[in-house]
């Protein structure tokens, strides 16, 4: 995967559509990231943290019983086993380390399901930084456990009460905070979206997923998988694993919730700093996504995914909430792994398209564990 253009574009997507107040901060961040990413010192410090604190590399697990049930070979990249329970920690440790180098003392973040918020609060605690996390009022209710975890970690969790009161509105609030605090705060954005350099920087911080998985597939399977799949909200875990296979023959499949299928139902538009596919009405008002999973409840998608979709290098499927609930139970029952609802989307697609996948080897990025969803699923499953 290449760097975006000087204008921060992947094809025509991306850019830096933020108030002039934030332009110097975004440009400064781009310069700082470029320098850090090329610095052996920074890379070593981050690698050490990923190994000693986050527990990388995450394992690759061959699924005997699930493979038997589905009729094709499934391997899981176990991002659920990272510290804090999801892939989000990769990006957050990178950004927090960078923020520290830039002399910032405060981290601002948005969160949907709470995984990115927990990861940011964790990094803030580790580095002794102040942390404010914006979360939609609706999500605060459905993800009470993660709210409690963030409080334990010393973060100030603030409720976003405007609009749909979910992830989209939490991002608006985080950006408004950053506009006012840009001198001492770093906006620790949680996905491959937002203004340049975020889509590129966050991808680079998650590239470790794909790099490890590529190596592990060669070790464990003796080959590259036929299909690599991941769920997509903003799309950070998907970009992370795709990046390790973009130059291979593997088919890349992103899976969106039916109620937030930006690639299929979206139209190019600008929100939260970049141009990408976006669910919007005919006047450009952003529509509310609807999903059982708070982490995928987002009407847009990262600009590089829009580019991968247009060029045909990746394709994007969508699944219904009911299929996700089944997949959630399927993995729990067959492999003893309770997945987060987000990666259960990718599994739901695999389960539905099992005929197409028959005889193939599929690598699924299991981006998070399901503990956070247990309460919600208790209600759903009665």
């Amino acid at each position, binding site marked *: 995967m290449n760097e975006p253009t000087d204008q921060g574009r992947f094809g025509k997507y991306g850019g830096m559509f*933020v108030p002039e107040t934030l*332009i110097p901060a975004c440009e400064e961040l781009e310069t700082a990231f470029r320098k850090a990413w090329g610095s052996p010192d920074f890379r070593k410090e981050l690698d050490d943290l990923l190994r000693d604190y986050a527990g990388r590399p995450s394992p690759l697990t061959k699924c005997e019983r699930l493979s038997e049930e589905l009729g094709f070979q499934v391997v899981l990249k176990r991002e659920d086993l990272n510290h804090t329970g999801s892939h989000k920690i990769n990006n957050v440790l990178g950004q927090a380390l960078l923020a520290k180098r830039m002399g910032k003392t405060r981290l601002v973040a948005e969160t949907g399901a709470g995984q990115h918020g927990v990861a940011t609060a964790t990094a803030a605690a580790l580095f002794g930084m102040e942390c404010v996390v914006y979360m939609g009022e609706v999500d605060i209710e459905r993800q009470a456990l993660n709210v409690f975890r963030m409080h334990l970690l010393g973060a100030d969790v603030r409720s976003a009460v405007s*609009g749909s009161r979910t992830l989209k509105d939490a991002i608006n609030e985080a950006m408004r905070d950053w*506009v006012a605090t840009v001198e001492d705060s770093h906006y620790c954005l949680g996905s491959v979206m937002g203004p340049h350099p975020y889509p590129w920087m966050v991808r680079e911080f998650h590239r470790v997923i794909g790099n490890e998985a590529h190596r592990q597939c060669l070790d464990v399977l003796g080959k590259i998988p036929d299909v690599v799949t991941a769920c997509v909200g903003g799309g950070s875990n998907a970009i992370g694993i795709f990046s390790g296979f973009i130059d291979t023959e593997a088919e890349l499949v992103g899976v969106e919730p039916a109620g937030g299928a930006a690639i299929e139902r979206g*139209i190019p*538009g*600008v929100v939260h700093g970049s141009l990408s596919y976006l669910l919007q009405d005919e006047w*450009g008002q952003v529509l509310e996504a609807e999903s059982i999973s708070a982490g995928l409840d987002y009407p847009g998608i990262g600009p590089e995914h829009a580019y991968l979709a247009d060029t045909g290098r990746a394709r994007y499927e969508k699944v219904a909430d009911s299929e996700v609930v089944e997949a959630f139970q399927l993995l729990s029952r067959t492999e003893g792994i309770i997945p987060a609802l987000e990666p259960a989307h990718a599994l739901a697609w695999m389960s539905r398209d099992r005929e197409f996948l028959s005889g193939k080897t599929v690598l699924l990025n299991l981006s998070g564990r399901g503990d956070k969803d247990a309460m919600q699923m208790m209600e759903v499953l009665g």
Partner: protein
Amino acid sequence: MSSRHEGIEVALTAKMQQGGKCLVPYITGGFDGYLEAISAAADAGADAIEIGIPFSDPVMDGPTIQMANDVVLSKGITPAQILQDIASLDVDIPLAVMTYYNVVYRYGLERFASSLKEVAISGAILPDLPLREAKPWIDATEKNSIETILLAAPTTTDRQLPEICENSSGFVYAVGLLGITGAREELASSAQVIAKRCKEITNKPVLVGVGIGNPRQAQEIAEIADGCIVGSAIVQKLLDGGGPESVGKFVSEFRTALDAI
């Protein structure tokens, strides 16, 4: 030709040449009574008026303007309806719209520019379209001579500020503080600093907005700047149910304060 058609920069420059200070109120388009409020503001001595076209995700706006936005959006009022309303509006001062880039992008850049021209709106303020992304829009406005008012922020570097001032037309919108729209108790010291920085490098009108909520603050900033934009404090009058009269009365207080300089 009425001054509504001369454009914002011509009108504001004329005001400056007469030794006056410029007053630009902001009113949320589509809000109950907004057309009467615009007329009342014009009658009360506004030099130009900024009309907000509500957007679902206004990242530069604080709670007051967000709330007015939500009221309008929940009624299903569209940008086209607001433009249509304005076409029949009988005011004799230039008008600008303030909205977010996706509204324009979805409309089509050329189409939006020509729609503004058709209803005699002179300018546009797009707070999430910074100079580095503005070229396609500015190119699209040329045929219709729509003025694009660019924002200069307290964080804008000395390298970028001259480019912003040079490419801005209508006036330079100096953002008075680090933050989003909304009235504040005191005028931020950053307001004077950014106004001074802009005045040093441009002959275009420099108006300060964001954080100007009362006549005293307007007077204070106009000692340095060529005038100010008053948004949230006016929209709050409408939200409080004061109607167009309260807007007219409030604007005339600002007028008096600025005329006393």
